[in-house]
């Protein structure tokens, strides 16, 4: 029942997306001194959301229509991290910028907190609806 509510689904999607971004950021930070390492990144949630709800048909990308399908059960599946193409490289071929990564980390932390707050509020509204506080 909870998963059918759009707001709850979106909050779950945002939290999952923030976690996937956190993994990409942690990979970049762990490889900040690895020669030849290319920075990876994920598109932001707004573009993922736009793709999920685009034109109402949700036609772009493959859709899971049965429970046995891979990735069924939740929309807003975060895409796999990709190499950022236009990043500036250090002389050793590494393209990670530590400042940029820290900024992304702060941003996704905020997203994650927001998603959890929305989820909590939605469940408390539901609880109020069934007569409990």
């Amino acid at each position, binding site marked *: 029942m909870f998963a059918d509510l759009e707001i709850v689904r979106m909050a779950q999607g945002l*939290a*999952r997306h*923030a*976690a*996937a971004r*956190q*993994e990409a*950021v*942690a*990979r970049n*930070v*762990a*490889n*900040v*001194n*690895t*020669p030849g*390492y290319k920075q990876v990144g994920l598109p932001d949630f707004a573009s993922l959301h736009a793709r999920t709800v685009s034109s109402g048909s949700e036609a772009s990308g493959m859709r899971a229509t049965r429970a046995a399908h891979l990735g069924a059960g939740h929309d807003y599946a975060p895409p796999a991290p990709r190499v950022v193409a236009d990043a500036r490289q250090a002389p050793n071929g590494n393209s990670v910028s*530590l400042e940029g*990564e*820290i900024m992304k*980390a702060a941003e996704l*932390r905020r997203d*994650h*907190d927001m998603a*959890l707050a929305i*989820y*909590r509020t939605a469940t408390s509204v539901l609880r109020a609806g069934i007569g409990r506080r």
Partner: protein
Amino acid sequence: MSDLLHTMALSASGMKAQSTRLRHVSENIANVDTPGFRRKLVSFEAAPAGIGRPALVETGRVRFDRSELPLIHDPGNPLADESGNYRGSNVDLVVEIADARQAQRSYEANLKMFDQARQMTSNLLDLLRN
């Protein structure tokens, strides 16, 4: 949730790699006056990723700095040859300290990422609590 656990494993591997590097730096600094000592270098590389396992970072093979050992003139040294010279070590203290500082900064950044993933996980688990 599994993404966050992967994050912690990644950050921990980064910290381990940086501390290995710092160990080699301190080895170099300790041997700065050892005659004939060659500076040790360690590089990082990505470990191959497995199924359900992120690509961790690890330190590669230890290599020696192949640059020329400096000739030091000191006729009183027991290692000196007929002309009064002996070979010192090719460790440059300034380079080593800069390296140590960079390792420390990277370690701190990894620690910060680890802490953030940990806080996100505990916030997630707090949802179950009420």
